C-alpha cells in the first residue's frame, strides 16, 4: 500500500528539552491513525511537525511521497482541527469556511461550491450566517472540521478535537468522524489521550510515551497483545491486573509462581523460552479471568470477594488471592456478596507475560 505520510528519523528539541527522538512512522493511504498517549508525551508536537507549524530539529517528513520538510503549512495538502476549535471569532461560519480559499484567491463560484458541499456533509447549512459565539461546542467543532474539509486536502490532522465536549456530545461526534472517514476515505491522523476514542476510531494506534512510539498496531492487537508493560497498563479500563512473580518448573512444564502459589502457563504463547527463575509480571485483563461456572476444567484457585462494583451491563468483582487484589469482569446479572468464596482461573491464552527487568512482552 502506498504511504500517505512518512516520518523519517524525526527529532525535535525545545532548547535542552528533547520532545521527539528519532521517530519513524509510515501512515498508509486512507488510513485512520490514532496517536495515543498521556498528556505531555509529544503528540501535539508531532502533529504540529507534520502540519509544518513547528520546525523539526532533524529528520524528514513526506506527504504523498513528496518531501515537505521545508514547505509552508498551506502547501502540504493538510487540514487541521484543533481542540479549542480555533474559529475566527469575528467571522461568520461561512467566512470561517471560506477564509482559506479566499486567501488562496479561488474564484467566488468555486468557493461557494466547496462551502456548500462541506456544509451539506456536516449538516451545518442553517448555521452559515452565525458567529462562532452563537454556536454550541459540538456545532463549533463541526465547523472546524468543515474548515479542513473545504480545503479538499489529502490528510486530515485532528488534535484532541473532542476533548472540550461533554461526554454525550463526544460519543456522538466520534461516530460522525468515523462516518466522515468512511465517506471521504482520506488519511486521518488523530491525536487523543482517550483510549476509547483510540480503540473505536483507529485502523491503527500508535501509543506514545515521552516522545517515543511504544507500539503501532491494530487496536485489537494492542489490546490483546501489548508489547510492553506501559502499553498494557495504558490501554483498558479498568486496567489490566499485574502480578509480580517468577517462572518456575513443575513436572517439566513452566508455571508462574507468586507468593508461593503456582499458576499453570498452559495455553500461553511465549515468543521466548520460559526459563525457570526468570522474574516476570503476569498481566490479565478483568474479562480474561474466569470464575466459578466459567472455569473450563484445568486448575482453579480459591479467592475471596473483597468488593463488588455493579455497573449495569457488567459487574466488577475485586478478588483477594495470594496477596493480590484482582479485578474480574462478569455479567451484570451475576452478583456476589463481599466475603463469598469463588473459584478462579486465568485464561492464559489471553494473558500477557512481561519481563520484570525490561518490561517487554515475553
Amino acid at each position, binding site marked *: 500500500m502506498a504511504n500517505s505520510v512518512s516520518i523519517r528519523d524525526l527529532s525535535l528539541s525545545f532548547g535542552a528539552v528533547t520532545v521527539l527522538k528519532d521517530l519513524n512512522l509510515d501512515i498508509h493511504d486512507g488510513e485512520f491513525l490514532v496517536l495515543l498517549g498521556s498528556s505531555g508525551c509529544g503528540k501535539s508536537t508531532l502533529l*504540529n511537525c507534520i*502540519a*509544518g*507549524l513547528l520546525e523539526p530539529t532533524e529528520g524528514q517528513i513526506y506527504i504523498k511521497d513528496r518531501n515537505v520538510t521545508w514547505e*509552508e*503549512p*498551506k502547501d502540504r495538502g*493538510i*487540514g*487541521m482541527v*484543533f*481542540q*479549542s476549535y*480555533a*474559529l*475566527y*471569532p*469575528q467571522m461568520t461560519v461561512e467566512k470561517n469556511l471560506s*477564509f*482559506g480559499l479566499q*486567501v*488562496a484567491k479561488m474564484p467566488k463560484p468555486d468557493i461557494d461550491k466547496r462551502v456548500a458541499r462541506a456544509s451539506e456533509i456536516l449538516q451545518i447549512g442553517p448555521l452559515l450566517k452565525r458567529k462562532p459565539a452563537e454556536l454550541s461546542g459540538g456545532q463549533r467543532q463541526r465547523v472546524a472540521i468543515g*474548515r479542513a474539509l473545504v*480545503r479538499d486536502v489529502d490528510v486530515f490532522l485532528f488534535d484532541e478535537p473532542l476533548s472540550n465536549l461533554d461526554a454525550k456530545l463526544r460519543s456522538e461526534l466520534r461516530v460522525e468522524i468515523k462516518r466522515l472517514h468512511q465517506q471521504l476515505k482520506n488519511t486521518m491522523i488523530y491525536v487523543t489521550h482517550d483510549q476509547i476514542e483510540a480503540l473505536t476510531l483507529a485502523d491503527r494506534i500508535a501509543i506514545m510515551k515521552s516522545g517515543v512510539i511504544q507500539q503501532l498496531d491494530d487496536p485489537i492487537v494492542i489490546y490483546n497483545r501489548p508489547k510492553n508493560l506501559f502499553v498494557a497498563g495504558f490501554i483498558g479500563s479498568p486496567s489490566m491486573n499485574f502480578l509480580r512473580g517468577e517462572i518456575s518448573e513443575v513436572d517439566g512444564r513452566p508455571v508462574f509462581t507468586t507468593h508461593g502459589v503456582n499458576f499453570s502457563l498452559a495455553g500461553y504463547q511465549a515468543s521466548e523460552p520460559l526459563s525457570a527463575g526468570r522474574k516476570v509480571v503476569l498481566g490479565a485483563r478483568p474479562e480474561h479471568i474466569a470464575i466459578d461456572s466459567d472455569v473450563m476444567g484445568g486448575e482453579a484457585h480459591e479467592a475471596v470477594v473483597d468488593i463488588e462494583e455493579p455497573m449495569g451491563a457488567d459487574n466488577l468483582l475485586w478478588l483477594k488471592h495470594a496477596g493480590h487484589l484482582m479485578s474480574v469482569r462478569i455479567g451484570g446479572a451475576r452478583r456476589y456478596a463481599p466475603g463469598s468464596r469463588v473459584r478462579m482461573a486465568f485464561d492464559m491464552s489471553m494473558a500477557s507475560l512481561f519481563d520484570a527487568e525490561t518490561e517487554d512482552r515475553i
Partner: protein
Amino acid sequence: MANISTLNTTAAGLDAVSGRLGSGPSGARPRKVLSQRNIILYGLLIVAALYYLLPLYVMIVTSMKGMPEIRLGNIFSPPMEITFEPWAKAWASACTGLNCDGLSRGFWNSVRILVPSVVVSIAVASVSGYALANWRFKGSDVFFSILIVGAFIPYQVMIYPIVILLRELGIYGTLTGLIIVHTIFGMPILTLLFRNYFTSLPEELFKAARIDGAGFWQIFLRIMLPMSLPIFVVAMILQVTGIWNDFLFGVVFTRPDSYPMTVQLNNIVNSVQGVKEYNVNMAATLLTGAVPLIVYFVSGRLFVRGIAAGAVKG
C-alpha cells in the same frame, strides 16, 4: 378529577413543609449596614475622593470668579457672579511671553503633534508586538529584553544624543522630529502591552490561520486586529494622555511657534509681568487638562476591559 386530587395533595405537601420550619435562623443571614468594616471602607473611600475632588473644585470656582472677588481671599466660596471672561481670555488672548493669542495656538500645535504621534506609535508597536508574540525569529528574545530595559532608562539620559541625532538628520525643531521622538519613547511600553495581549490570544487561532495559508499581514489585519479593539483603546489612552501632557520633549524638540499646549500653559502661568491672574491661570489649566479627561470619560469602560483582557489570560 384525578388531576385535581393530585394537585391538592401536592399543595398539602407544600403546606406541611412550610409548617415544619421551626423558629431560629432561616434563609440568608441578615447583614448589618453600619458594620465596622463598612464604616472603615466607605469612610476611607470618601476621604480619598474628597482629597482629589477638592483641588478640582477650587480650580473650577476660581476660574469663574472675577479678580476682585478672588482678592477677597476665600478660595472655597462659590462665585457670587459667574463669569466666563477668564476662560475666553485663557483661550484667545492671554500673553505667553512672545505673543498674546492665548492657548489656542498651543492647542492646535498639540493636536498636530498628538494625532500623528499616536497613530504612528500605535501602528509600529502593534505590529512589533504581534511579531514578537507570534513570529518568533532568531534573537526575538534578546530584542524583547532590550525593549524592556529601554522602558527603564530615564528620558533625560537620552535627550542630548537625540538632539544631536535629529540635528544631523536635519529635522531638529520640526514637528516631524518631535513625532519621531514620541514614537520611539512610546515603543517599549506599547510593544510590551501589545505583545502580552497577542500572547494571551489562543495560539491555535494563529496556527489555524497559517494552515489556511494566511501570511504575516493577512493574519495581523484580518484575524488579530478585529479581536484587539480593547488593547488598542488602552494604547490610545496611554499615548493620548502621555503625549498631550508631555512638557519636556515639547520644550526641547520644538521651536516657540510650535510649542505644545503644556508649554504655553507654563508660559502663561509663570509669566512674570503684571499681576497674577489666578482665574485665567485656572481656566487655562482646566482647558489643557480637558483633552485627557474627555478621553478617559469616553473610553473608560473599554479601558478597564482592555486592562483586564491583558492581565487575565484567555
